[in-house]
């Protein structure tokens, strides 16, 4: 008998500025399952998990984000222990 094991990863999530206020924290370790039917966890799954948390419903569906200090698209496939940072609209300078 073959059972498909859903991909689940634990990632470190960093939140900044307004997003930290919305979620009420600046960092959390999150266990994130892959989307239904997908074998691998992507950054989009992290966003979906955050949007399901209290306060997270006001996060945009497609925020800027960085994986391990580099800006990456939502479709980026993650590995165990990756650092995923959600970046509100940048306002430096």
């Amino acid at each position: 008998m073959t059972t498909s094991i859903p991909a689940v990863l634990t990632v470190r999530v960093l939140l900044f500025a307004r997003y930290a206020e919305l979620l009420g924290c600046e960092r959390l370790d999150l266990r994130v399952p892959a989307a239904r039917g997908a074998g691998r966890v992507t950054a989009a799954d992290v966003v979906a998990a955050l949007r399901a948390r209290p306060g997270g419903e006001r996060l945009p569906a497609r925020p800027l984000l960085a994986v391990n200090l580099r800006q990456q698209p939502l479709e980026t496939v993650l590995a165990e222990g990756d650092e995923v940072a959600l970046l509100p609209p940048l306002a430096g300078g």
Partner: protein
Amino acid sequence: MPHLTDAPIDATALATLLAAVAAPDRGGIATFLGLVRDHHAGRVVLRLEYSAYAPMAEVVCAEIVAEAEGRWPAAVALAHRLGPLAIGETAVAVVAAAAHREAAFAACRWVIEEVKRRVPIWKREFYADGTVAWVDPTAAAGVSP
């Protein structure tokens, strides 16, 4: 030298940035200073606070400087302030030195635009009416709702 600083970008800090790029074969130095303005989108600003994803911001600042130095025959220094700032304080400084002014101005201009576009830094403004908002250059109102 880190690009992010909690200390004022004052005359002493500017002299350090200028010294970092000055050389006998560089005859022109262009400087851009971004200062804290007392108004934004029609509101009176009393002060502001910058915060950053510091490890990434340092990496991106270093990349911008290296890219500018690859695009133009120029030496570039960049500093961005974090933490609470008062009106009139320097928030960001870009210094670009080159043999001639064209490359110095071009590199300086490009670096400040890339800083605004790419570096993970956020700005919280405190207004005279007692309200506070996160600056959002992508929003029509200029701040997050």
